[in-house]
């Protein structure tokens, strides 16, 4: 496969704690990949390390062939990575529209697939609340806004941490449906979540992290074939 992002032998620490232990991770162009694991296994750290927000001690990260390890997060974002962090990171003192316009930029490859109106078409709820402040939104609306904001930079890769955590079932369905639409437009997606069935429906490849190490990597079919192992690793 034509790799978009490829990390090899990543090691990252929080103080003395060795959080990522020689992680290999790759995402192809337009591919959807789930990142699974119990709490504290290194999923968020891996996304933050790929984004440049958490430094890696050693290893190699390539985006579109360019060595991006050590790059500033802003440079990685400009190179085509959109990031939806755990906890969402909405700007509470900006309106919905300002949150979106804030991030507007043509993609690293010159594409302008996503515009403000396109995001409003994707999330009609946001269009209704375009003049509301970020902190006046429900959790679901905030997540829609964070995803929309990341798309406004026309990324080639969208990384979503805890996509549906704390959201009502109907809103979760909305988020999964939207992620599918985004994937269908050719945007590669890495998603962290706890809903295994939804992840299997969205993603073609799955990676399980345990204590900072990759213990499983495979297709949806391979994941299904090792159901007992997977469920034991995820504590399901």
């Amino acid at each position, binding site marked *: 496969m034509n790799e978009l992002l490829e990390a090899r032998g990543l090691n990252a620490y929080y103080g003395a704690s060795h959080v990522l232990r020689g992680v290999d991770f790759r995402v192809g162009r337009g591919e959807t990949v789930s990142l699974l694991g119990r709490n504290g296994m290194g999923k968020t750290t891996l996304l933050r390390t790929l984004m440049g*927000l958490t430094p890696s001690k050693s290893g190699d990260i390539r985006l579109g062939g360019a060595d991006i390890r050590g790059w500033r997060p802003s440079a990685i974002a400009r190179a085509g990575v959109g990031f939806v962090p755990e906890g969402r*990171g909405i700007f509470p003192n900006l309106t919905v529209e300002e949150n979106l316009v804030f991030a507007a*930029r043509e993609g690293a490859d010159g594409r302008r697939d996503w515009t403000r109106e396109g995001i409003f078409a994707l999330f009609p709820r946001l269009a209704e609340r375009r003049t509301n402040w970020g902190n006046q939104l429900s959790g679901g609306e905030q997540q829609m806004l964070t995803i929309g904001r990341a798309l406004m930079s026309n990324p080639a890769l969208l990384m979503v941490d805890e996509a549906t955590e704390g959201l009502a079932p109907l809103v979760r369905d909305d988020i999964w449906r939207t992620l599918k639409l985004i994937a269908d437009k050719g945007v590669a997606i890495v998603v962290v979540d706890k809903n295994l069935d939804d992840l299997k429906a969205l993603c073609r490849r799955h990676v399980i992290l345990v204590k900072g190490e990759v213990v499983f990597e495979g297709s949806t079919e391979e994941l299904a074939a090792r159901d007992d192992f997977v469920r034991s690793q995820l504590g399901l």
Partner: protein
Amino acid sequence: MSLILLQILNGLQYGLLLFLAASGLTLVFGILGIINLAHGAFYMLGAYAALTLTARLGDIFLALAAGIPLAFAFGAAIEWLFIRHLYKRDHLQQVLLTFALILVFNEIQQTVWGNYPLSIPMPSYLSSSISLTADLGYPVYRLALMAICIVLALVMMFVIQNTRAGRLIRAAESNPEMVEALGFDSRILFRIVFATGAALAAAAGILAAPVESAYPGIGDRVLIISFVVVVIGGIGSIRGAFLGSLLIGLADAFGKVFVPKFSSVLIYALMALVLVLRPSGLFGRQ
């Protein structure tokens, strides 16, 4: 009646000048997370630079026009040389370094301008007074000073509310890491914010110089009161800094006349009252 009007004007004038100084401090504190004890020193250097620039350029307003970009460049250089190394360090190290900068700036002031109070001439065309009531005249320069401060405050608020740069500043005030993750280099943003803060403090110092002279220690007084403004208004809030500055200006002006024995503690009592009622300040985030 005239006394009350006079004190309102004095309070507003002091408050507006204070706003220029405190708005920079609240931005630097709110966005960069830096406790910049050297902020008052920019005000002090502005006041002294007003002397030199007015002597060379012939007019305090030309001194202001030249002083603002000079102070911006100076602030950017200080950020690049010293402040940027503090962003990931704790407040104690920030306080130590910025206190050291105060000592250095004070030495520069003593070496260049000496240790005595120096008065800066008002422009002759603004040195008169105008009658506000039958028995009350008010210096025209002070009114002009207030007008300039109001214009600068309006420009600042317009930029923050309505421009891309303003959105960036508001976003960084709430979540600088996310701003970086969305493709904006926070190093440049932080440098511009710090330099803007320095320029605003220096502008206040330049404008105040013809009214209150330039003297050693002038920056320390402004620094302390500016921190009170930041606490009252809420960290990072320009609107809060504006309201807090005016409240302090008026409390100071009326306190000196009506409760002179307690005037020095009045603004701190006001700060304590705000902290009791709204611990995060008038416009601070809860």
